[in-house]
């Protein structure tokens, strides 16, 4: 079947089967490979995107379920001039990534958190990232980056 959606502000469409996962549709059909598939079992959060302004695991949703929806992926997080968006820049500034595999999902979850809670505490950030797994950083710098992106002072946050 043909499905269409607005991805990062652009109308996009492609062919999908009923069983086509949203993550596969983004990566293989729309060629938006910034969304990563880490575990494919809805645990790791590398594939987090926003559908209708809500963070979801794109490996645990069928593409056809997003037919007609507004979708935001990591490719939509940069500024219009191509420079890094606020959250992305904070991840760079505070070394919130090492291998980078989980980062797309981390940034999308962080974006969802900050929309819901513009000034989260350290524990609120850690709690919100329950479904995003990073095997490199130990999370400290990710938490620090998200706090910094929210405009809070992070000088005293452990790193």
């Amino acid at each position, binding site marked *: 079947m043909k499905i269409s959606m607005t991805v990062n502000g652009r109308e996009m469409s492609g062919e999908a089967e009923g069983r086509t996962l949203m993550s596969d549709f983004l990566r293989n059909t729309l060629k938006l490979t910034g969304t990563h598939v880490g575990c494919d079992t809805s645990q790791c959060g590398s594939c987090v995107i926003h559908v209708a302004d809500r963070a979801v695991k794109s490996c645990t949703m069928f593409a056809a379920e997003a037919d007609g929806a507004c979708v935001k992926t990591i490719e939509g997080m940069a500024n219009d001039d191509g420079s890094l968006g606020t959250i992305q820049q904070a991840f760079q500034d505070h070394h919130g990534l090492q291998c980078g595999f989980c980062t797309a999902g981390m940034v999308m*979850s962080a974006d969802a958190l900050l929309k819901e809670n513009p000034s989260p505490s350290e524990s609120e950030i850690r709690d919100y990232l329950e479904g995003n797994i990073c095997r490199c950083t130990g999370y400290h710098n990710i938490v620090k980056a998200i706090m910094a992106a929210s405009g809070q002072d992070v000088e005293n946050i452990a790193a």
Partner: protein
Amino acid sequence: MYAFELERPSTIADAVAALAADNAQALGGGQTIIPTMKQRLASPSRLVSLLGVSGLQGVSSGDGAVAVGGATTHVDVANGAASSYPALASLAANIGDPAVRNRGTIGGSLANNDPAADYPAAALGSGATIATNHREISAENFFLGLFETALENGEIITSVSFPVPNRASYVKFEQPASRFALVGVFVAQYDNGVRVAVTGAAEGGVFRWTEAEAALSSNYSAAAIDGLSTPSVDNLVRDLHGSAEYRAHLVKVLTKRAVASS
């Protein structure tokens, strides 16, 4: 996963018609069935998404009860019941992780009846009524055993009505890897008595701990649990995460914590 048809009806009548096909199954948020299908432990010929069906979403309160539409996501229950039934809202706010709560639905959770799921404890612990397109089913009669409910083929959970207690609390001890409840206890005090529902502990799924209900109905305090022996339930779960004895101990501890925090 194996190929199947995906239907997205907008009315209950169309959903019921779509579910009449052989081996068709309802799809809520898909947070359990999609991983299950990837493992080829389920292979429906057709999935019928209920998320687009009008009238199945939302939280409302009145007449001493909170009614939740069958396709309401966990995050919407967490927000929508925060003032009307805080213990239910808190339970919903701690299911899975934020992305799972944005997709998973109460109807999906109840219909799946995972023995370690949270919602069955709230439903049984509140004496909830589960309404379908055919009938109303009391929580007592709804949960039949491991992944088994009273729902018949083609039957859709349209709403769940929770009588609001005087006070209540749900406390779970999370299995550290999956974050499912190793044991979870829902305690609710009503004018006519106290209900205690336990999830995660028994192979048959959620159950009421009647000895604790009797003790708490006459003395609503954590101390009332001290004198009780651990629940005499057949087939407590025993696995690498905890022995049956450990789970039985947790039931007592968590019941006390739920009473103290209610």
